[in-house]
């Protein structure tokens, strides 16, 4: 065996110089001579080998057939260094000496002085004449006329029926009222109906009882919690910065979550919703408000809070990251990449990220368009001038308020320090009185000696003095609490102390503090956006101006002009938001309508909500999709209107349980139910499952909004993050951690965010079974559930449990096996208890309660609880 000797030992230089003494290397003086000596026989001239010309600093990044010759400040991964360090190049003649290699390495690592941005980029696809349907505005088709008119409740049904009838299919019969009640409740508010709500709806004989139900659910504050969660998925919301192990918390992130909940609850028009999230600061003119208003108006605060949408991408940056070599390419650019991916996949359903490295392989999106859109966000996110994530925030305050606060707080600081010295003075005065008084209690002859002993410095005390100090100091000069309790005995002390402390407290309360929001805002000054060759920030190419996907046919073009120098914000994001939310944008309304449809039916009209591009799935009902999209815009982008439209359709209301005949016909013609010949049975998603368990057991904390509930965490077997005071809030308020998610929610497919989640998995795995049977939440909920039914339904607790969990009473067969179960378990528990202790008042018979708790636990683990018909 042999160790490869690649560096020649003879050339190892003893006369090396320390780094700081080394002068900076230049292309002309240091590097070019080496290239001239060893490389230009091939890599120069009109037709250089492999297209790589090494004689001009402008050609190194442009590179040759194999791409850029170097990556700035990263010699080890530069093609040039790779070839020379391994002696692959030059292929014939003398190799580079270690010293020459070292020079080139250091030159690259110190920034490749003299190198110019690459000039040529991937233009492989100057896009013209794009045919793809989703790149053209929706066209509103006339509502078709169909047979079976009695099934048509609204245009949705006409579109659906026409396609069903073409395949000799039809809608399934409508579901019964109870099923509709449960389905609507879970769909709209994510909680099961209470027994009272069941009773009320079933007995409501008014013809518009169902419409009233939908209105009631849509006006519930829980509606916003449910639908915000869907949006938070596509927004990639998380409350930790956490792509790195420390999973740094983002204490202000929940304000954006609350903004989303409020937006859904108030049915904020979707175009406005997007404009605020992308450019809320520019839309509400934050900087003018900041500069000129006495106080920021609510809409401005709402606007800057909404930009939290652009802050969801993982951003682990800290102030010390600026010291890291190539931090921009390694840490800052990725945040920008993720942000663009989130914006494009959530609002336009495009997999734009493919175009970061090369022109899109499937969709008509050239690479340069990617960077034009990146330029929209470049004024705010500046990889070369990065603001660490914890410092990127805005105060909820105007300039006047900030100045007034600074003034007042300076005054407060002064007063506080005066009061504190008054307090010290007071204490000192009374302490010396105490000293004299206690000294006076001692025999006269020792007083002076003690006084002298205490006055003298410790090191030079005599032995006698030391003994005296040891004996009397504690008594004469008591410390801390002992001193405090001794002093209050003095007349006047307590009074003055209290007075000063009160003044201090009053003063401290005068201090002005402002709430903060995690916002995105522009940094003044011009920003530059280079195209990055192969998406690599270390091989920058030509600069581009802000723009959008050029192949999308939009009636209104993207319009942006550079603002005056000195403008506080560039207006780029607002221009983009306006372009995106124009009524006839080919994608914006379609993508959102599709997403809402998907949450009501299980599958979207376009089955790939993240990909409306060429490789995505084509719409099952193109005309319905376009009709809904245009209807959505016509209604003023009202999402609640869309829910009403869908939920009052016969298509949505049809039963998921169908006759064998209907099923057979459907499965034969359309096995995937893409044509909606029945409703789809749906599993509760993670949050709804947890929230439902807490609801039926009566322990759900229905408090709205606010800071998130912590997830307990252990290390070395010790709890390092404790459970909060109330662990039973709705799941949307459970902290969304990237690295340490809540285990129950995770097991049931809550996404752990790396970028964002446009469509969840719905898995069926055995860890779910274990979580249901033995997990902490259901176990706890089961006990509470049992207590609840025994208290609320003392006559018929079994029936009560069914009513609460399933919204129905048990049948007689069910009664009989449930009763049998209860009797068997009660006896079993009793026999197990008997072995340890007998029942007294202190040890009541809990067997029946335990049996009930098991019954409730199984109800919550059962399919009827987990699935919605």
């Amino acid at each position, binding site marked *: 065996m042999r160790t490869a000797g690649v560096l020649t030992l003879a050339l190892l230089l003893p006369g090396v110089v*320390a780094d700081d003494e080394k002068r900076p290397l230049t292309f002309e003086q240091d590097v070019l001579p080496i290239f001239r000596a060893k490389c230009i026989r091939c890599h120069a001239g009109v037709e250089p080998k492999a297209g790589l010309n090494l004689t001009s600093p402008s050609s190194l990044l442009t590179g040759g057939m194999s791409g850029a010759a170097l990556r700035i400040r990263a010699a080890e991964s530069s093609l040039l260094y790779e070839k020379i360090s391994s002696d692959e190049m030059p292929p014939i003649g003398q190799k580079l000496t270690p*010293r020459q290699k070292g020079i080139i390495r250091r030159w690259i690592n110190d920034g490749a002085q003299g190198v110019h941005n690459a000039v040529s980029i991937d233009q492989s696809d100057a896009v013209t004449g794009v045919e793809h349907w989703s790149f053209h505005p929706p066209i509103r088709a006339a509502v078709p006329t169909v047979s079976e008119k009695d099934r048509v409740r609204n245009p949705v049904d006409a579109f659906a029926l026409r396609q069903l009838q073409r395949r000799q299919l039809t809608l399934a019969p409508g579901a019964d009222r109870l099923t509709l009640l449960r389905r609507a409740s879970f769909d709209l508010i994510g909680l099961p109906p209470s027994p009272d709500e069941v009773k009320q709806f079933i007995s409501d004989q008014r013809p518009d009882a169902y419409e009233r139900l939908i209105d009631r659910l849509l006006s519930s504050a829980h509606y916003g919690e449910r639908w915000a969660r869907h949006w938070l998925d596509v927004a990639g919301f998380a409350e930790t910065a956490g792509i790195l192990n420390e999973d740094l918390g983002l204490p202000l992130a929940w304000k954006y979550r609350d903004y989303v909940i409020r937006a859904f609850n108030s049915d904020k028009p979707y175009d406005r919703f997007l404009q605020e999230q992308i450019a809320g600061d520019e839309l509400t003119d934050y900087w003018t408000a900041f500069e000129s208003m006495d106080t920021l108006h609510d809409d401005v605060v709402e606007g800057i809070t909404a930009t939290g949408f652009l802050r969801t991408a993982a951003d682990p940056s800290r102030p010390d990251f600026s010291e890291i070599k190539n931090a921009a390419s*390694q840490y800052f650019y990725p945040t920008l990449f993720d942000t663009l991916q989130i914006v494009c996949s959530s609002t336009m359903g495009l997999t734009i990220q493919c175009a970061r490295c090369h022109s899109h392989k499937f969709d008509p999106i050239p690479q340069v368009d990617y960077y034009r859109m990146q330029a929209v966000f470049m004024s705010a996110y500046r990889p070369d001038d990065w603001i660490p994530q914890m410092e990127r925030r805005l105060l909820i305050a105007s300039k006047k308020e900030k100045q007034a606060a600074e003034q007042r707080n300076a005054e407060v600081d002064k007063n506080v320090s005066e009061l504190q010295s008054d307090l010290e003075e007071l204490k000192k005065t009374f302490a010396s009185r105490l000293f004299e008084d206690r000294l006076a209690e001692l025999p006269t002859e020792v007083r002076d000696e003690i006084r002298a002993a205490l006055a003298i410095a410790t090191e030079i005390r005599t032995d006698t003095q030391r003994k005296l100090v040891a004996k009397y100091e504690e008594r004469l000069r008591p410390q801390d609490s002992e001193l405090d309790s001794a002093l209050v005995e003095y007349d006047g002390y307590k009074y003055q102390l209290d007075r000063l402390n009160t003044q201090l407290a009053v003063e401290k309360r005068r201090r002005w503090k402002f709430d903060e929001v995690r916002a995105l805002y522009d940094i003044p000054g011009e920003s530059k956006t280079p195209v990055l060759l192969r998406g690599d920030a270390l091989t920058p190419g030509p600069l581009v101006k802000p723009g959008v996907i050029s192949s999308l046919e939009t009636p209104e073009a993207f319009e942006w002009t550079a603002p005056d120098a000195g403008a506080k914000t560039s207006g780029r994001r607002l221009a983009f938001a306006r372009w995106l939310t124009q009524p006839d944008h080919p994608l914006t309304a379609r993508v959102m309508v599709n997403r809402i449809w998907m949450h009501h039916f299980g599958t979207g009209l376009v089955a790939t909500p993240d990909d409306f591009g060429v490789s995505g799935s084509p719409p099952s009902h193109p005309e319905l999709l376009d009709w809904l999209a245009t209807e959505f815009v016509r209604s003023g982008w009202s999402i609640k209107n869309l829910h009403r439209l869908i939920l009052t359709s016969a298509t949505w209301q049809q039963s998921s349980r169908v006759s064998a005949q209907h099923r057979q016909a459907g499965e034969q013609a359309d096995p995937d139910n893409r044509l909606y010949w029945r409703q789809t049975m749906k599993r509760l998603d993670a949050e709804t499952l947890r929230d439902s368990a807490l609801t039926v057991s009566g322990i759900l904390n229905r408090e709205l909004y606010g800071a998130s509930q912590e997830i307990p965490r252990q290390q070395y077997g010790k709890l390092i993050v404790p459970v909060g005071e109330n662990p039973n809030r709705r799941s949307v308020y459970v902290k969304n951690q990237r690295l340490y998610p809540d285990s129950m929610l995770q097991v049931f497919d809550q996404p752990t965010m790396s970028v964002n989640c446009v469509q969840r998995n*719905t898995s069926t795995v055995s860890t779910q079974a*274990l979580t249901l049977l033995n997990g*902490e939440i259901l176990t706890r909920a089961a006990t509470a559930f049992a207590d609840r039914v025994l208290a609320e339904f003392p006559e018929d607790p079994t029936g009560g449990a069914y009513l609460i969990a399933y919204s129905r009473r048990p049948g007689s067969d*069910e009664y009989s096996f449930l009763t049998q179960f209860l009797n068997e378990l009660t006896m079993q528990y009793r026999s197990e208890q008997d072995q340890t202790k007998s029942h007294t008042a202190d040890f009541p018979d809990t067997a029946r309660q335990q049996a009930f708790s098991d019954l409730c636990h199984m109800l919550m683990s*059962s399919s009827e609880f987990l699935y919605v018909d």
Partner: protein
Amino acid sequence: MVDKCPDGTDIGIVASEQSEYITAERPVSMTPFNPISRRNALSQFGSGFGGLALGTLLNETTSTAHAMSSAAPHFEAPAKAVIQLYMHGGPSHVDLLDPKPVLNRFDGTIPPDEVADDEKRTKNLMGSPFRFRQYGQSGLEFSEIQPYVAKHADDIAVVRSMFTEHRNHEQAIWMAQTGMIMPGRPTLGAWTAFGLGTENRNLPAFVALPDPDGNSVDGIRNWSNGWLPPHYQGTAFREQGTPVANLHPNQPRSRAIEDARMRLLRRLNDQHLASRPGEEELDARIETFELAGRMQLAATDALDLSQETAYTQRLYGLDHETTKSYGTRCLMARRLVERGVRFVSLFMFQQPWDTHSNNNERTKQCCQRTDQPVGALLTDLRQRGLLDSTLVFWGGEFGRTPTAEQQKPGAVFGRDHHPYGFSVWLAGGGIKGGQHYGATDDFGHRAVENRTQTANLHATILHQLGLDHETLTWHHNGRDERLTDVYDARLIEKLIT
């Protein structure tokens, strides 16, 4: 075996013939609320390696078959399982596997430009205090601090020319575990589980063995399924308490109570299913409860180390405080592989190999904790005839600088992170041992000979399991994703032929 995906018709036939069996855990991506139909699922698989994975799908989901049927890989291959000994922090290659006499000779001197620390976080060259010796017939070199592993020199292939793309732990871990510097992708273990399915239906295909003291750096992402279906996520088995989270209730229940609960649940679910014929999802749900029950027994049994002889326990160092923890996980790994688990990953708390200060002492301590257990694992696998079918893979996210780091004046020298050249080793599973592959320069700074990117290593490991890294794909984000992604990955032929 074919390695191309069969056409759609074939898939359709297979599916309809066996459709009544598709009931249990489904390794199938499902859209929200609406399980992708079987046909979609199959065409999804079809886009990658169709009919072959389909075999897995069907076999695995056969609710009646107790015969352990493994999925057919893409081609015949020696390895059935992988044990990954992940070394968090980045072990120092020049102190363990890559002897550098030149480095020792120039100890304490300023490095020349071609090996100087480009981030200037370290300064002078630092030789290794550990003596290297040749072991076995092959004479493969190991340093003196890993005598137990060195005994297996003839089974071990050291790759000395690894390099990675990031100097920070997490990013380099993502590269090592998921093939790219990007969080959120599936790990090598998840890809293996996806490609091969499980051999033992009562145990997960991919098991992670975290340190009971706490998570390693990057936490649960070390066994993440990324965007692969959750079925392929590693299941963390614990060596203390119950082996799997929620395997047993916090408050123990008697057998009688447990049985009565399960009978009630079964009755509720059967009745619910009876009025919803054709809802396969409900069958699958019922099966998860059955499987959970079987897993309770199988996992408990697999991790019951008291079944091992005193000799074996001593072999793994269970009788010594220093080696007990890692030895326990090594022994668990062998028992799991023996029972058909496909991929077992072993982890240590935080990142013990991250020797920024006191490199020599701390590297030695890491060896004291792991060397005997790892040696025992190789011995034990060999004795049981499992080594030929089990690929053992040792390594971390990068190596350490040949230059010395001093965190503050007076501190004992350490070594910093080093991505440009480092070593990992492989043994068993058809790997040709007794050799090293590739080389770094004379200082151990840069891999210069047979430079080995992570993708090559991943492709080679998958290949040993009978999986082709180019056809093992999953459609996500508008493209067919694979472990080796955009890299031009090549098999390390010298290791496998």
